[in-house]
């Protein structure tokens, strides 16, 4: 069942929800006030390590005809790409580091090492996904328009291919992400503003040319006789990044404990109710510090969704305060080891490739609600954006 009212679902009174909101606001304020040198040093150090790894990987690949150099170079480059996309790019573009006033580490100027232009990411992710998290018909990240991930999404025979689409999406993740903000369905139905589409396509084209040129033309050419092994190394590094980021991202909202909402929920939703929806709609995973850094601290997905623009290195500390709050108010706090969380997501992908009547629901929110419309909303049909989600430039000036 998609939740139509978070208050009712959690059996909390309006006063209790508002009190919870105030406690969460207090956490935000405490973290904002305690941002300091150590935080700045963290992101600067991470950027240094990431660029160092990327450079070392690229240089090592000049010797990539020698197998151990291929392995070492690929590993370094793959890890560098993962760090850049997850812990650096994603978080910088949320504005987590804007408070430093550093024009070189700022959401308005950052461009990341993947095919999707930063600007389109900031729209599809910072705004559409973070504001409308898990609201059926509003959040395009429920299955990304490719997979059926909620029982309320209408089944179609094409969904039988989900196991295959899923494997393709994992392998080609950066290309899926690159096209995400375009809204292919609207283009197919000829509903897309041609002006906006032209701009977006030009942006993507420019970015893709540079990205592909770097990994598959220029570096192989530079390495001369090692061109073939350099190309395969670069392809492998990109694949590593694709598979890893796909898996981490699928653990954010697709495990069973991450609940869905119907659009009644976001009507007149207060800030505190928005907080509550973020907590109910997100899932964490457990692991050591290295795992969290490699996954952009998205193992703290709940904390990230509550405070998308607070520095990611503080999420662990924030979770120490959020978890007791969940206990105090009797709100579920979904977490578990990575393999279990991903396993649940995978099971949903498989099950929902079939019509509802052939499978049983795994979610704790019980039987499913009414079917939701296919297709996406335009920005004009959406609510105004919340400030804390991080900026994006307008469509018109894109």
């Amino acid at each position, binding site marked *: 069942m998609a939740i139509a009212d978070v208050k009712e679902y959690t059996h909390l009174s309006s006063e209790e929800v508002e009190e919870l909101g105030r406690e969460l606001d207090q956490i935000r304020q405490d973290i904002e006030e305690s941002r300091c040198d*150590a935080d700045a040093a963290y992101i600067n150090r991470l950027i240094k390590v990431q660029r160092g790894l990327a450079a070392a990987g690229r240089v090592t690949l000049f010797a990539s005809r020698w197998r151990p150099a291929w392995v070492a170079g690929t590993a370094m480059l793959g890890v560098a790409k993962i760090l850049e996309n997850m812990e650096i790019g994603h978080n910088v573009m949320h504005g987590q580091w804007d408070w430093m*006033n550093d024009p070189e580490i700022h959401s308005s100027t950052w461009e990341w090492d993947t095919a999707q232009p930063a600007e389109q990411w900031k729209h599809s992710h910072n705004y559409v996904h973070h504001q409308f998290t898990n609201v059926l018909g509003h959040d395009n990240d429920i299955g990304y328009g490719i997979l059926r991930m909620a029982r309320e999404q209408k089944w179609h025979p094409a969904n039988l291919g989900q196991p295959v689409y899923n494997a393709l999406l994992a392998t080609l993740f950066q290309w899926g992400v690159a096209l995400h903000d375009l809204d292919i369905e609207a283009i197919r139905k000829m509903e897309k503003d041609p002006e906006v589409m032209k701009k977006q396509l030009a942006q993507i084209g420019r970015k893709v040319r540079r990205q592909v040129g770097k990994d598959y033309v220029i570096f192989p050419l530079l390495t001369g006789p090692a061109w073939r092994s350099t190309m395969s190394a670069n392809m492998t590094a990109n694949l590593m990044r694709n598979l890893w980021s796909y898996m981490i991202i699928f653990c954010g909202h697709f495990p069973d404990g991450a609940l869905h909402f119907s659009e009644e929920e976001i009507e007149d939703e207060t800030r505190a109710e928005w907080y509550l929806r973020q907590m109910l709609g997100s899932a964490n995973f457990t692991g050591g510090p290295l795992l969290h850094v490699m996954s952009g601290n998205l193992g703290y997905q709940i904390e990230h969704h509550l405070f998308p623009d607070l520095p990611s290195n503080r999420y662990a500390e924030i979770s120490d305060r959020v978890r007791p709050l969940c206990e105090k108010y009797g709100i579920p706090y979904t977490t578990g080891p990575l393999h279990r969380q991903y396993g649940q997501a995978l099971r949903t992908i498989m099950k929902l490739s079939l019509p509802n009547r052939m499978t049983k629901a795994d979610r704790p929110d019980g039987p499913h609600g009414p079917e939701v419309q296919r297709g996406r909303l335009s920005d004009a049909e959406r609510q105004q954006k919340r400030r804390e989600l991080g*900026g994006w430039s307008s469509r018109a000036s894109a």
Partner: protein
Amino acid sequence: MVAERISWESVRRVGSRITTPLSPDDYLRLVNPLWTSRELRGRIEEVVRETDDAATIVIRPGWGWHYDHKPGQYVGIGIQVDGKFHWRSYSVSSPPRRSGGTIAITVRAMPEGFLSEHLVSGLEPGTILRLAKPQGDFVLPDPPPARMLFLVGGSGITPVMAMLRTLHRRGSLPDVRLVYSSTTEERMIFRDELRSLAEEHDGFSLHEQYTDSDGVLSFPDDLEQLCPDWRERETYACGPAPMLDACEEAFEAAGLEERLHLERFSLDLGGDGAEGGTLTFSNTNKSYDADGAETVLEAGEAAGVGMPYGCRMGICHTCTLTLVEGTVRDLRSGEELSGPNERIQTCVTALAGDCTLDI
């Protein structure tokens, strides 16, 4: 020179094909923090104590810096304190050089100025800071006037020092009179250097006024005493606001305001303001009615939009945003800037009609 610069640009463009989406400078700066021209940077080479509460900071600028400041101009300095960059502007006290080397600023720790305090006593050589291009009209004309009077109070000596050093380096100081007020002798920045300049050059004379013991100068009475021919001189005044106000009054009374050149250390958004209008934020579709005296930055903050900001005085360009449509007026110069896609400094511009801002 031009050919060299063009070739560097093309090297960088080619290099960026392999570093995309970053620029080669983003990697080079990890080897040496000064090897980047993406943002102007400098490294502190030396902190020289001038008095108990003032120090000269010698900075080696990184790539992209042109050593072409005019004597008397100021630069923006951005320092990271508690992880956050803060900006202030300081007069360059070193004379301009043709090539290479360093620039120096001289800073007095102000009781309420946490950044100046930090600059004077908290900075280690090797610290990397951000720089903004030299600016300001309080400059030594070229060629310099034959007869000059400098009226200086406290740390207002810094731009004047750059002028005097330039004249000295060229080998000849023309007829220059310096009237320099300081609370006490100990707090007088550059006093030894000024005294030796006065000994060396016949044309240069110095009056030291210790205001704690001798009182504050009164205009124009004391001026008649200290520099009887002040009416015939080009006068450059820099110091605390009350001193400058008194000075301005005296020159106006004498009908000589054209001969007086002032440097005020605070931002003067005198201008005529602008018409005001409705400011719309394209990101959120929020809008706000701004009056013409409010800066775009203030309007954005009042509307609850998370505006980027830095120095709040038009120096550091941190606050720069894109104007999607409409016209704003630069409150410093009165210049009008119109969209679409005009990059504006929100801290020194106000609305001249309805505008849409890309944030």
